[in-house]
């Protein structure tokens, strides 16, 4: 089975089940909202795809000169353009692209391997997900934990320390932090590998291209250990940088909710601080944080580009950069459509979760 389909099954099926559950149990307003949001995704993707299609053709440079360089004669360039339909009118090229998007075919890469784009994405999307998901979990858990502690113990050492940490870590260029971690944990201490997804000398049968899952289903524990070791630095880099913003947002919201009347009332009833924080302050403080997760997904994907470059991680971000530089129209368009779909799905999930967490929200 194609790795892209397997990736969808692994991540998409649970999401689909969750969505169906919410859809069936939700109010008619929520059901209407979900249907509208799904319907709106189609024009959103189309508009974005159209913009990308046009921008790729407006910006300087073209795939022919980029691919052939100074050695490409006029005859060779003409043949290349003819073979790839680059001489066709823009409207014809656009029509072909839209048809490819709707059939989820995406055509073949223009430069280099000229393989089907879905095959190229099937190799890279799992790699990106395998890094982005643990990084998001790390950012969220660290940010919420420290933010809560700082908010509850305002003006304490932990509050000042967390605030300094959040500003420093968020301001730090991601590639610089990555290089620093490579040097400290890889070169100096020798604790972790510094690049790649797995030691290439360890054999591993790749089915889903999600190496953690592949090594578990083949019971290849040596490979699993190598995969996890290779995940440490990229996850730490991406997760720490993103944790800063979650920390600050959680802190300020815990402080604000701590001043609400219902918290004062809870205190007056003699409920201990831990229970107040967990049951009252934190639950309410999490609502903006959940919203932020949706917004951070796009930033996370952008951050993954740099992280993937530093850690030689063969994911979507690195692929996108390579293809943009090569002016590989079809590949760039396809990756961006995929990114857009990803962000749209996460945004939808966040909006739905928002309504579940905050009963005041009515759709």
């Amino acid at each position, binding site marked *: 089975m194609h790795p892209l389909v397997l990736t969808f099954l692994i991540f998409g099926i649970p999401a689909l089940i969750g969505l169906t559950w919410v859809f069936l149990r939700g109010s008619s307003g929520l059901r209407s909202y979900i249907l509208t949001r799904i319907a709106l995704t189609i024009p959103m993707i189309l508009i974005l795809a159209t913009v990308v299609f046009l921008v790729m053709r407006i910006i300087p440079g073209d795939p022919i000169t980029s691919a052939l360089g100074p050695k490409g004669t006029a005859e060779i360039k003409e043949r290349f353009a003819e073979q790839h339909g680059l001489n066709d009118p823009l409207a014809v090229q656009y029509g072909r692209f839209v048809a490819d998007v709707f059939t989820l075919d995406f055509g073949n890469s223009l430069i280099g391997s000229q393989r089907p784009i879905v095959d190229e994405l099937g190799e890279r999307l799992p790699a990106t997900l395998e890094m982005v998901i643990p990084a998001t979990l790390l950012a969220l858990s660290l940010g919420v934990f420290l933010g809560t502690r700082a908010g509850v113990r305002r003006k304490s050492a932990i509050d000042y320390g967390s605030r300094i940490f959040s500003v420093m870590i968020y301001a730090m260029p991601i590639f610089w932090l990555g290089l620093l971690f490579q040097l400290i944990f890889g070169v100096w201490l020798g604790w972790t590998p510094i690049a*790649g997804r797995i030691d290439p000398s360890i054999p591993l049968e790749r089915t889903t291209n999600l190496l953690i899952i592949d090594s578990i289903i083949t019971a290849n524990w040596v490979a699993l250990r190598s995969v996890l070791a290779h995940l440490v630095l990229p996850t730490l880099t991406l997760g720490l940088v993103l944790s800063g913003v979650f920390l600050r947002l959680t802190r300020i919201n815990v402080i604000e909710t701590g001043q609400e009347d219902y918290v004062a009332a809870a205190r007056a009833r003699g409920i201990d601080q831990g229970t107040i924080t967990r049951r009252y302050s934190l639950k309410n403080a999490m609502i903006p944080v959940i919203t932020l997760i949706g917004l951070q997904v796009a930033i996370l994907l952008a951050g993954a580009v740099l992280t993937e*470059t530093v*850690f030689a991680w063969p994911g979507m971000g690195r692929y996108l950069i390579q293809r943009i530089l090569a002016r590989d129209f079809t590949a760039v368009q396809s990756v961006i459509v995929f990114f857009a779909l990803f962000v749209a799905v996460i945004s939808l999930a966040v909006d739905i979760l928002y309504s579940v967490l905050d009963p005041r929200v009515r759709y």
Partner: protein
Amino acid sequence: MTKRLLLVLFSFALVVAACTSSDDTTTTTAGVSDTTTTTEAPAATTTTAAPVAAVCPSETGGGTVVIGTTDAIASLDAADAYAVRDWEVLKNFGEPLLKWVPGSADQLQLGIAESMPVASEDGLTWTVTLREGLLFGDGTPITAEIVAAQLTRLLTISETGPNQVGLTLGNPYVDSIEAVDDRTLQFNLPAPIAFFLQLLASASYIPANPATFPEDELNVFPTPPLTGTGPWIVTEIVTDESMTLEPNPNYHGDQPKVDRVIVRQFADPQSMALAVQTGEIDIAWRILGAELANELGEIDGLNSVVVPSGPIRYLIINHVLEPTNDPNVRKAIAAVIDRDELSDVIFGGAVDPLFSQVPPGFLGATEAFEDLYGSPDLDAARAFLEASGYSEDNKLQLPVWYPPEHYGATTADGVLLVVQQLEATGMIEVEVNAQEWGTYVGALTSGEDYPVGVLGWFYDFPDPENYLQPFIENGGLGTMVTAKDGPITPGVSEELLTLLTASRIETDLDARAAILEDLQAVYADEVVTVPLWIEPEFIVYRDGICGDASLPNPQTLNIGGTMEFSYSVIGTDGS
């Protein structure tokens, strides 16, 4: 600790800036041995190689060697591939009729051919006999019929691929390839060429296994295992991650010294540099910059060496556009270039200045620009400018273009230093323009927009022809000394074309060298291009990794002037 910190700091700055075995080999110097022949290709002269312990004290071999690279695979079909990395892989799992002695660039030896090809009297037909009992890596017998059919792919289906290498290395030189009998091949040429043997040693002339590469269709990105005529089998390719090669048990020659080679893909040289430090990789190969390679060379346990080869950098001068259509302007530009300063300031002396478009070591290579213009001679430059009416009050306005991101920071710095040198005449005012590569290369090579621009070049086959013909014929990659359809540009010496044609068909080495010397003199006089420097390539490897001491350049793991890296020669000390 300090060095490592400096390395990180330097890496940070960079990121910011960039957001064969010896079978049948005798090293004779005559071109008549039936096993090894010396050609007019460049001698393997090391540029500024550091003295390192390159040969293992007690070589044992075996084990796995991991090589790092930032160079991506673009095509693995010999009838399409047109990049250094692709050719490197092709030459490890495939082998042409002839091959270069590892580490050399002037010694051809037999590949899958049993003896050196023989030319007919008119030079239009070459006949070559295959070795007996040849097998592809999967055990398929190799016959002349299969080889002829597979090499014919270069002439017939190459044009359907992204690189269309046949139009560059096939069709202009070969009309057809026939099997005379089971082991004999015949190449029919449209015109005699002096460099046919070098052409046969190129990766484009590797017969591919028809089981993977069908006669009528390219297979640019084949699925492993890739078996061919060479000493290795590509057993696994993980896109953008790694490639694994294991010895080919059916190879006709000596088996590789190590059990397995893994080539790991890196996105940037900084990570690759750190990986060779930690031992995740044993060898950091292309592409490391000079500063990074020097830093790594100072770390215990690592050896950093300059490879005696690399692309050249030069100025394309447009002979049709103003103001460079004026011969005096072109000569003034040639006279002000201080190549030693470029080498010292930009590369810390790590590059070789280039005084002719044909690099040193090639047959007939001269220092024509040094001989004609000095390096530099500001007075001569001013005299050329004055002859065309320019003065300190009436300065020459000269647009100079370069691609800031494509060749890296050093080339960009080099261009800016060239600008300073031009303006040091006091009679030239340079307008520096940067343009993104995709647009730049199209505009420059079409000859329509840029009077002066910088470009890089690495040969397709190691012969002076490949350093001269592209800049003279068919628009000259933007020099426009000839029009796209052929005729020489008015005002440019027709002697250029006459000498080029003569050098192409002359097979006597001495006579050809004399023609090439004359050609370079005319080339410099016309200032077709302005050669600047040879960009160095570096290899860094850990202690315990060794080259073959019986072959040239063991200190670079036997990578010589052809820049071919034969994984078969890599040895280990068993540590």
